[in-house]
């Protein structure tokens, strides 16, 4: 039983946390791709800047002496999401809208988004330096150790408070997104435009409004994903830049333009990464008692060494692109 609890700690919880972050980021990328038809690289910087908005607000709260029962990062999240949504709208108006008006190809927009990535990253580094920050400098990160001895395990189930809240918040967000996309007029308009932009326009959907709503949703979700990642690890200027490729992989694996696909892809890649680096000896150790001398299990038996964790996502990406060139849920193309 100890081995089973260990497996849950190392794979299920770690994979779920990572998967939630990837999924939230990938939904934004997939919506932007569906509506605007370009791969938005600067999404990583929307995530990082969102996390920094939340960090500044949390620091302000701490300075004002406001103490909250749950981590302050989650309390300030709604305000930071609004700020990020406005920021995303501003970026679109300043950089992408003029190019769209000129009728530039999607490829040009992609390169422009790399320019935006560099500018935002430069600004963040200018103001915050290259060091890392933690949300838990003034408050403590609660760690729950659930005793599982009634199941016959010698080890407790370990989960931190941010991880628990993170999973709950993600589930609520995904449900809200589902109802927004299926029940509201705007959400239906977004899905219609993702399916066929010309048809959506002639059937009376306000495409300019849909584009704005897309940026609001993408910016808010990016802020959420970035803040969660910063709460789970540490906040640094290249926080999201390092994981933008797994996020893109999640969006592509799910099929670009498919919101549900992005969520599935994010969870898939999150779990795949934590499964690949999991040390199987920990679970299979009881076998050593049965196995003969020459076939004893080595001390570490993982599918991939830990250093190669990030490459798992790329390998999945390349394999999926080869087998189904537009993703599992049959995505759009530019």
């Amino acid at each position, binding site marked *: 039983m100890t081995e089973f609890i260990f497996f849950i700690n190392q794979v299920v919880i770690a994979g779920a946390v990572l998967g939630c972050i990837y999924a939230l980021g990938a939904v934004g990328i997939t919506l932007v*791709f569906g509506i605007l038809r*370009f*791969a938005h690289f600067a999404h990583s910087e929307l995530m990082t800047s969102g996390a920094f908005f939340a960090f500044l607000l949390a620091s302000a709260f701490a300075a004002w002496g406001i103490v909250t029962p749950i981590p302050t990062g989650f309390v300030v999240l709604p305000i930071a999401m609004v700020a990020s949504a406005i920021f995303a709208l501003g970026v679109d108006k300043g*950089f992408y809208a*003029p*190019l769209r008006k*000129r009728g*530039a190809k*999607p*490829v*040009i927009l*992609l*390169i*422009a988004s*790399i*320019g*935006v*990535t*560099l*500018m*935002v*990253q*430069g*600004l963040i*580094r*200018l103001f915050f*330096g*290259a060091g890392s920050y933690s949300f838990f400098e003034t408050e403590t990160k609660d760690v729950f150790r659930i005793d599982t001895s009634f199941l016959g395990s010698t080890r407790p189930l370990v989960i931190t408070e941010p991880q628990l809240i993170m999973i709950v918040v993600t589930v609520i967000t995904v449900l809200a997104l589902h109802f927004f996309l299926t029940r509201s007029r705007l959400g239906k308009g977004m899905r219609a435009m993702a399916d066929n932009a010309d048809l959506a326009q002639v059937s009376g959907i306000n495409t300019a409004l849909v584009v704005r709503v897309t940026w609001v949703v993408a910016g808010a979700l990016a802020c959420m994903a970035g803040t969660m990642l910063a709460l789970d690890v540490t906040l640094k200027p290249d926080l999201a830049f390092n994981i933008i*490729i797994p996020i*893109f*992989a999640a969006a*592509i694996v799910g099929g*670009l333009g498919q919101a549900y696909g992005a969520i599935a892809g994010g969870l898939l890649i999150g779990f795949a990464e934590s499964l690949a680096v999991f040390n199987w000896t920990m679970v299979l150790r009881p076998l050593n008692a049965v196995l003969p001398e020459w076939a004893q299990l080595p001390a570490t038996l993982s599918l991939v*060494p830990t*250093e*190669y964790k*990030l*490459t798992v*996502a*790329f*390998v999945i*990406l*390349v394999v999926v*692109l*080869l087998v189904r*060139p537009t993703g599992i849920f049959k995505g759009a*193309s*530019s």
Partner: protein
Amino acid sequence: MIRRSLTLFAGLFVLILVIGWAMGLPFTSSRLVEAAAYSLIALGLNIQWGYGGLFNFGIMGFLMLGGFAVTFISYPVNPQFWGSDGPWMLGRALIAFAAGALLVYGARQSDRVGIRGGWKTFVTVLAWFVAYCVYRSQIDPAAAYIEANAGFVGGLGGHPVLGWLFGGVLAAAVAFVVGKIALGLRTDYLAIATIGISEIIRALIKNMDWLTRGTLTVSPIPWPTNLPQAYQASGSSQFESLILARGGFLLLAIAVLAVALFLISRAYAGPWGRMMRAIRDNHIASASMGKNVTARQLEIFVFGSVLMGIGGAMLVSFTQIFDPSSYQPINHTFLIWVMIIVGGAGNNWGAVFGAVLIWLVWVVSEPLAKVIFDFVSYWSSNVGWGAIPEIESRSAQMRVFVLGLVITIALRWAPKGLIPEAVRREG
């Protein structure tokens, strides 16, 4: 068009003179050598994107391969490795790799013995898994043994120019495999797939300590021309020998660049170039005219990557240190894209102009930002707002911002680049 190019190049020359005057000759000569290497890399991307319309965002991977190649060829031989059991263990790992490859090949041919459909997929996946396990079972102990006993494999002690050539060959081989896998994808998908592949290459080179020494870095890597120390030994002053040595390297780099520029300009002006433009502009029509679009795109992807490999090798042999952790997508992929976009995709002179200009902007923006920050800091502390803290580290970050600014300005007001592609009407 010619006049515009000449004016721009004259302006670039003036800029170089200004930098030489402000930053000193040793600084400027080093930056020019690097600019020549980057020009070669930019020409490589110009072939892929400007001629072929291929979206390669994995430049960093090819630069790393070139850097590794020159390290492997030109670094002195490591007798500790060759005297140990290392080569024998590596040989066994190689045999395991070959056996694994054979197994996968066999599984892919299994339909000949009547295994079809889902069963064939199953057999193939199983073969991949078994091959991977067999290879890991041999390479893991070999890697641990070499790292413990000899540090790393070391080099072959060859001439650095051989290393540059090997960089081109290695990049070509990898580009062939990558192209076979990824070139069927459309623009955005291709961009993301190539980024993923270059990250895999980085992870491998960074973590294969037994082969590349990983994060421990390899230095000093020998120069193809005389080092400053050689000139100093023969009686030149320190400054003189520095300039002479870098001048020699610069001449060699410019010679390589000139040969590459001549060859690809000739090819581009001929029927081959016409065919490539036709494929780029309308691959469906070209395919119906009987051109083998897939093969031609693979060809162009390999050609471009060769130049990237050689350029990456030149950069490493000039700085004399191979440090896998110093490679970043910002510095080694996006920077080169900015060079092409600003210089003008589809024009070789535009690529060279953009490479030199952007490289100079990139290296100068740091000291320039420091001067501006010092100035602002002086005023703000006089006014009473206090000085700017950590000016050194902050100005170092400004060049990323400047790069982003340049790319957005260029896309907005000069989308075809400063020296745009010359569209000729032939016949």
